[in-house]
C-alpha cells in the first residue's frame, strides 16, 4: 500500500513565483522569506516522495463563476500551467498520478463526499508556487507526480473548515489503501493572512499567523472548529485559504512532529509560511 510520509504547508503567493523567475530571491524584500525555505527543500530531498497531493484553490483561472465546484479532484495524466493573463509560466507540465486520483475519488464518494471528477484541466499559481518552493523549478520534469485537489475558497458558500479537516481524514485512508508502494506527501497551500480587496486591503495578522502555524500541528481541532467568518476576520478576506491546510492536517496522525516551520511577513501583501510535519509514529 502507498505510504503517507509527511504533511507540508506552504503559501502560494504568485509574487513568490515571480521573485524566483526574476532572480529577486536575495533582495531586501525577499531574502528573509527565501532564507527560510531551505529545510523544507532538504526534507523532500531526503525523504524522496513519489507523489504530491496538492490541496489548493484556483484563482479565477481554471474555473469561472459560471460553475464552481466545492471540491474537485484531478485524475488526469498531466496538468499544464495555465495562462493567468500574462501567458503561461515557463515551467514544465505536471505529470498526474491518475490512478491515485481515481482511487481518492472512489473513496470520497463512498464516504459521502461529492467531488467534481476532473480529467482535463490546467493549473494556476496555487499549485505551481508550492511545487517550486519544495522541489525547485526543474528544467525538464518535476521529480514527483501530482494529484491536484481544488477547494473553493473564493465564492461563497465556501466549505466549512471542519469539512476540510474531514476531507483530509478520508484522503488519508484513500492513500493508505492505494495498491502501490508510492511515498506520498500532502501539501496544504495558501495564506497565511492577507486581504487583497476592500478598505482593509493590506491587512495581515502576524500574531494569528504564528498561532496558526503552532496550532495546525499541535491543536488542529481548534482550527477546524473555527467558522468561515473567523478565518476572514482573523486572516483577511483571502485568509480563508488557510482552511486548505486543514485538509493536509486531517490526513496526518493526531500527533505530529514539526520538522520545519518558517514565517515571514509581508511577502507582497501576505504573511508567508512553510511547514513540514511528520507523523510521530513514522
Amino acid at each position, binding site marked *: 500500500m502507498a505510504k503517507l510520509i509527511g504533511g507540508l504547508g506552504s503559501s502560494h503567493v504568485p509574487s513568490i513565483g515571480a521573485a524566483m523567475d526574476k532572480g529577486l530571491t536575495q533582495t531586501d524584500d525577499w531574502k528573509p522569506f527565501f532564507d527560510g525555505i531551505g529545510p523544507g527543500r532538504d526534507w523532500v530531498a531526503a525523504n524522496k516522495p513519489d507523489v504530491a497531493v496538492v490541496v489548493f484553490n484556483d484563482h*479565477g483561472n481554471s474555473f469561472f463563476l459560471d460553475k464552481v465546484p466545492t471540491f474537485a479532484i484531478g485524475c488526469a495524466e498531466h496538468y499544464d500551467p495555465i*495562462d493567468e493573463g500574462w501567458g503561461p509560466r515557463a515551467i514544465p507540465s505536471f505529470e498526474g498520478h491518475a490512478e491515485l486520483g481515481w482511487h481518492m475519488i472512489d473513496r470520497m464518494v463512498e464516504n459521502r463526499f461529492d467531488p467534481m471528477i476532473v480529467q482535463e484541466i490546467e493549473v494556476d499559481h496555487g499549485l505551481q508556487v508550492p511545487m517550486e518552493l519544495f522541489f525547485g523549478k526543474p528544467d525538464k520534469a518535476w521529480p514527483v507526480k501530482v494529484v491536484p485537489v481544488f477547494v473553493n475558497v473564493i465564492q461563497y458558500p465556501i466549505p466549512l473548515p471542519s469539512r476540510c479537516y474531514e476531507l483530509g481524514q478520508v484522503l488519508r485512508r484513500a492513500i493508505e489503501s492505494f495498491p502501490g508502494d508510492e511515498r506520498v506527501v500532502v501539501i496544504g497551500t495558501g495564506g497565511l493572512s492577507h486581504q*487583497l*480587496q*476592500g478598505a482593509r486591503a*493590506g491587512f495581515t495578522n502576524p500574531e494569528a499567523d504564528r498561532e496558526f502555524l503552532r496550532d495546525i500541528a499541535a491543536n488542529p481541532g481548534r482550527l477546524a472548529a473555527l467558522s468561515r467568518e473567523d478565518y476572514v*476576520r482573523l486572516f483577511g478576506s483571502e485568509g480563508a485559504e488557510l482552511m486548505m491546510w486543514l485538509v493536509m492536517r486531517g490526513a496526518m496522525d493526531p500527533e505530529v512532529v514539526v520538522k520545519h516551520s518558517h514565517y515571514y511577513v509581508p511577502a507582497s501583501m501576505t504573511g508567508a509560511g512553510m511547514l513540514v510535519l511528520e507523523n510521530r509514529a513514522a
Partner: protein
Amino acid sequence: MEDRIPDTPLFDRSRQRRGYRLNKMAMGLVDPANRDAFRSDEDAYLDRFGLSDEEKQAVKTRNWQEMVRLGGNVFYILKISAISPARMTEIGAHQAGMDHDTFLRERLGKKPAGGQ
C-alpha cells in the same frame, strides 16, 4: 455575510451576482486574443460583455476601488493589470484609499522606498 466584517467585501451571493458581467469580462483576458481585443479597442471589448456605463467607466479609469464596489473580485479584475501594469500593492493602496508609499509603510511595515 455581507458587511459583517468591517471593510471586508465577502464575495457572497449578492456581490458576485452584481459583479458577474464585470468579472466575466476580466476573466476573458486569460485568452490572448481577448487581450489583443482589449488593447486595440477597449470600448468594443467591454461592450461585448454588456457592461453598464458605470462599470465601463470604472474599468477605463482603472478604478480598482470602484470595480470592487461594483462586485468585481480582485482575482478576475487583476487580469486587467496584465495589460495596464499595476502592482498588487498599488491596487491594494487604491482600495485602502492611500498613496502607495503610505500604504506600504502603514499597512505592510515597509520602509518608504521598499515594496514590490
